[in-house]
């Protein structure tokens, strides 16, 4: 009985591991390509493990093309939109969670609707508005649009979070002489940190990875984000796969770091959208 159980456990583990390995082949291949020397990238049959290993592709990507500038642009835009969307959705979530007022659920429904309605169909009007307001090719327009993407989702996530905190906390704060705003800032906000970090990671990954808005609303090389830079890095006739894969790995690392540090909260946030 015991050995049978051990065997089935072993089988489950090996199937899962095999599956993960197959699923990660493209990632492994990208890494392997990025670590090859120029002449070995196109080898046939291909080398699975690069020999010799070289960091030349990473070095040349960082030195020769403006990837550092792209990185900086992406960071500014992503962190900016995280800051804007978290600071607004925190008190909005508090408002929705703690107060009753006419039309509350209708307004909340409108927010959810705008969360689900993807940006694609709105792109035309936003583009016209941005060009009228001279906001094309600026950080501001990207931060605003990404904040618009993220605020409804963060508010939704945080509303549930605030609702799970007992209202006695608020009452106690008010008895101690705090205003509503004081209660929010001093009592509730510190307790919201786990929810805020989950919402923050999701917002960061969404903004960091976004491509269509970034490529449509910027047109000079100086303003390109990393995703857009990657896209334009391919030449018209010849693709330098070694350097391209090195650049794509660099573009993935920040999102990956946040993901692994905060994956529990992130998964809780993701599943909230589908499971009640």
């Amino acid at each position: 009985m015991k050995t049978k159980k051990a065997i089935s456990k072993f089988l489950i583990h090996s199937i899962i591991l095999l599956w993960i390995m197959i699923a990660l082949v493209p990632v492994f291949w990208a890494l392997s390509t990025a670590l090859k020397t120029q002449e070995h990238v196109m080898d046939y049959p291909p080398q699975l493990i690069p020999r010799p290993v070289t960091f030349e592709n990473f070095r040349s990507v960082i030195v020769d093309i403006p990837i550092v500038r792209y990185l900086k642009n992406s960071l500014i835009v992503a962190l900016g939109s995280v800051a804007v969307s978290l600071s607004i959705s925190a008190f909005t979530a508090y408002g929705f969670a703690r107060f009753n007022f006419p039309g509350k659920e209708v307004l909340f429904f409108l927010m959810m609707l705008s969360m689900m309605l993807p940006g694609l169909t709105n792109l035309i009007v936003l583009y016209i508005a941005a060009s009228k307001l001279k906001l094309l090719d600026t950080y501001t327009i990207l931060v605003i649009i990404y904040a618009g993407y993220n605020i409804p989702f963060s508010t939704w996530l945080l509303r549930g979070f605030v609702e799970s905190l007992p209202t006695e906390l608020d009452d106690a704060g008010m008895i101690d002489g705090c205003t509503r705003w004081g209660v929010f800032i001093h009592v509730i906000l510190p307790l919201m940190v786990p929810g805020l970090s989950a919402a923050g990671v999701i917002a960061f990954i969404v903004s960091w990875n976004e491509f269509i808005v970034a490529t449509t609303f910027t047109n000079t090389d100086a303003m390109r984000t990393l995703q857009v830079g990657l896209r334009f890095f391919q030449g018209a006739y010849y693709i330098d796969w070694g350097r391209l894969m090195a650049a794509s790995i660099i573009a993935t690392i920040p999102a990956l770091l946040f993901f692994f540090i905060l994956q529990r909260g992130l998964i809780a946030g993701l599943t909230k959208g589908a499971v009640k």
Partner: protein
Amino acid sequence: MDETISRERRKIPIKYWVSIFPHWREYLWIAPALLIVFLLSIIPSLYTISISFHNWSLLAAKKPFVGLDNYIYMIRDSGLWNGLRLSMLYLVMIVPVILFLGFIMALFLNQKIRFRGTYRALFLLPWVLSMVVVGLNLRWIFDEQTGLINYLLNFLGIKSMPWFSSSYLAFIVLGIAQIWRLAPFAMVIILAGLQSIPEEIIDAAKVDGAGNWQSFWSITLPLVKPVLLVLIIILSLSTFNMVDLIFVMTAGGPGTSTKLVSYFMYEQGFIFLKFGYAAAIAMVLFIVNIILTVFYIRLITTSNQP
């Protein structure tokens, strides 16, 4: 005299507003977020309708009203019908595969085993990659000359496949990219659905003599059905609005074989700069989106009782 009247006028409205608007403080909390939602989502949606009735090109000074011309042109344009057909085909291709793979992975991870959290994180990794990175990675392993996939095929004695120059194969590779990225996402969602099923129910069924298979069909599956429906809607929404992956992988080609309706709209608007026409196509997409979204919100707000 005049002054007192104007003062009165000013006073009364404020009092009046406060009296019918006793909740203004509460509204103040949610006002900034609502303002952003209105400015970035609701007003643009409405304004798109107006643009779709004009011959609107960004560079032209005049943007004449043309009535239904854009819509009439659109209905006669084979690009629209091709795009809609491809989007539907794409959905029919990816949804069953994603749900099937996601479900099997979730069943494995729902066992009581060690390293479950680590496995789940590793599975979810492709979801963290951006669409651009996904597209580039898959373009490289499916490369027709030196790609890994063709090498493996040759190794097994199969001829190299023209992955990006054949219309069917390009469409399939585009599907594989989305499956690769979204099957793990489906797994996480289904797993959460499975974990929300109380163990007692399944234990009770086992006590009543139900086998593993039987309890799966008659208990597990019905209980996660709402989750599967939600997933189908999320997948449909992302397919009907997918531009980035096409942009990076095929640019709609070869020919028009991967020009889904979303890409067709983007191309008319931002490559050919025909904003009026693109707005008309956007209205079609918009209606599809609204229907899907209303279903979605219904599902997640009323699925309290399974």
